[in-house]
């Protein structure tokens, strides 16, 4: 059975290592914060200028001056630091953020990603996504394996305007976990109840199955 969004987030949380600085995009990536493993200390970066992003405030304690990149009200944690947008993207560009998790409309088997623009549809803008994908040393995409029409989002080449090129390392979908390798998407894990045949059927990009492919533990 395909994973829920929460399960995708939970699986990605297993990639977190102690001491990581992590930027979580809007959507499923945001949920990753709820599943940080016990004993793993990570610091969340919000690209509007905050390191050490804490949880939502208690009702009645919202501060208009404390928001995250999704414009949600958030709080400080002990050890938080605030900085301006130039420094925020400076530290991203300099590779100081250890892991970025973001959503995508399409990922190609060469690591390209498209997640900001659909031609002929109203374009809202790329926000910080292009900066993040261009600079992060380690990017995981969290998304559904197929679009609402049932078409594969794991492609040989992106069809939508690109957000970044050759930048994605790993994709976690509702069907499985995939590394991006010179041979294309390499399936490392499949969701409980999902067959390799289903993954093959729903993956348009080049796909290889790892010799030690296993069921995802979520």
């Amino acid at each position, binding site marked *: 059975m395909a994973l829920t969004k929460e399960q995708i987030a939970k699986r990605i949380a297993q990639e977190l290592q102690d001491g990581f600085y992590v930027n979580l995009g809007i959507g499923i990536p945001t949920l990753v914060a709820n599943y940080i493993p016990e004993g793993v200390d990570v610091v969340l970066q919000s*690209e509007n200028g905050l390191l050490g992003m804490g949880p939502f405030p208690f009702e009645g304690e919202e501060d208009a001056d*404390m928001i995250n990149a999704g414009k*949600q009200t958030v709080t400080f944690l002990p050890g938080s630091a605030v900085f301006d*947008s130039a420094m925020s993207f400076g530290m991203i560009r300099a590779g100081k953020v250890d892991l970025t998790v973001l959503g995508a409309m399409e990922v190609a088997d060469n690591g390209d990603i498209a997640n900001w623009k659909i031609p002929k549809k109203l374009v*809202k803008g790329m926000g910080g996504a292009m*900066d993040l994908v261009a600079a992060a040393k380690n990017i995981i995409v969290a998304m559904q394996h197929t679009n609402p029409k049932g078409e594969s989002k794991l492609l040989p080449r992106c069809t939508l305007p690109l957000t970044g090129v050759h930048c994605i390392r790993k994709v976690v979908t509702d069907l499985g976990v995939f590394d991006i390798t010179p041979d294309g998407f390499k399936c490392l894990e499949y969701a409980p109840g999902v067959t390799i045949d289903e993954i093959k059927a729903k993956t348009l990009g080049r796909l290889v199955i790892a010799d030690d492919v296993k069921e995802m533990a979520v």
Partner: protein
Amino acid sequence: MKKVVSGADEAIKDINSGATILFGGFGLCGIPENCIAAIVRKGINNLTCVSNNAGVDDFGIGLMLHGKQVKKMISSYVGENAIFEQQLLSGELEVDLIPQGTLATRALAAGYGMPAVWLLAGIGTEVAEGKETRTFNGKEYVLEEAFDADFAIVKAWKGDTQGNLIFKGTARNFNPMMAMAGKITIAEVEELVPAGELNPDHIHVPGIYVKHIFQGVNYEKRIENRTTRKPPTP
């Protein structure tokens, strides 16, 4: 050294139709509410606005869009705004979408006297099309120009009569860079204090970058996306 002005109307009095204005703020957080209201009152138009976002329908830069005062927006993300969409589709409004870090760094470059900067964002995408690119140490960068704007309008938490500014929390965002990047920078502050009351080590933007400063009034500080959790049961 007379930096203090009476209010927003005096602060923006030299801004005329056709001006390019840099705005601080991220979403509705840390936006110069008083100056935006004064620009709406003044009714100038044909403005080019550089701002990470374009406000919402009835707040922030959205208010200027409502009066058709904006000719062009240079932003990274312009969702949450129906008037914006409508003016864009009707061709009344131009928009130049650029990556958020590029926006921040083009402002930084202006404030630091650097004419252009080599950045990573947009390489291999339409953002870098037609721009000079170059490979340094095996990575490709695109050359992006510093902003060249007559005015910058920012909002700080505290300021002093010398123009020094301190921001609070994530309302800092683009404000320091925009303040540094403007040829003429206008700062509105929630609290204006006499010189000497701010700790010199806590100042985020030194007064040398600020031309006019005033204490704003009636800050609404609207929250765009209120998210909370329940207090723990005692």
